[in-house]
């Protein structure tokens, strides 16, 4: 096991989250807007080729934050465009992220059916 990579994952992932906390505390950005911004930023960074080096450097420290979700969308589109052309621009993003989105949907459905929310507002 590569302990140095583990440390880098902790540091880089932590910094990405700390930036999010700064945005919450010192700007008017709501959590939803921050998540949207992170995903779009991930698409842009992935698109211009800056995100893959970060993944190579920090592993899960770059793939687990939501910017990694954006980079996955960009990567999926790039691969789909290179095989299918313009059609790929419309299929690549969701194809690459289908696993994550579907697991989250099923998990939310099951939890919604089986569990009770504790805090009542």
């Amino acid at each position: 096991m590569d302990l140095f990579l583990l440390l880098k994952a902790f540091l880089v992932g932590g910094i990405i989250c700390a930036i999010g906390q700064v945005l919450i505390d010192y700007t008017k950005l709501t959590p939803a807007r921050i998540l949207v911004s992170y995903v779009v930023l991930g698409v842009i960074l992935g698109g211009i080729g800056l995100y893959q080096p970060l993944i190579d450097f920090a592993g899960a420290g770059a793939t687990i934050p939501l910017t990694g979700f954006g980079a996955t969308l960009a990567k999926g589109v790039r691969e789909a465009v290179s095989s299918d052309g313009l059609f790929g621009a419309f299929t690549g993003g969701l194809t690459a992220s289908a696993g994550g989105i579907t697991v989250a949907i099923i998990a939310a459905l099951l939890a919604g059916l089986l569990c009770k929310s504790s805090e009542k507002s």
Partner: protein
Amino acid sequence: MTKQEYAQWTQEESPKSKGPMNILKAFVFGGGICAIGQLLVFFYQSRGAGELGFVFASLSLVVLSAVLTGLNVYDNIAKHAGAGTLVPITGFANSMVSAAMEFKTEGYILGLGAKMFSIAGPVIVYGVSASVIYGIILVLFG
């Protein structure tokens, strides 16, 4: 009480927690979740998953987050961790699961089914749209 009064009341009642401590906690919790993710990547790659190890690690964290949210644990951690539990993929899953649980009372279609996307929906809408723009740019100039 009116909406404005309520907003002001919650503003006054909620502890003003800003500053370095908050940021440090977001760093530690967020980094910790990513480190767990990396451990999962190591595990899956040791089983021969290769590059897919990253995908499996993300999916595992989504499931873990859903379980902890279902047990009402994740939201208690999130009170301390702030962006540390929001920004990782676990936060995305938590937003869906907790909304599904909370709005079940409004029905299975427009409550559970619709409200689970109140945060995840915009993330998907703008993420996918940005990726389509990127794809079109690739087709035109690539």
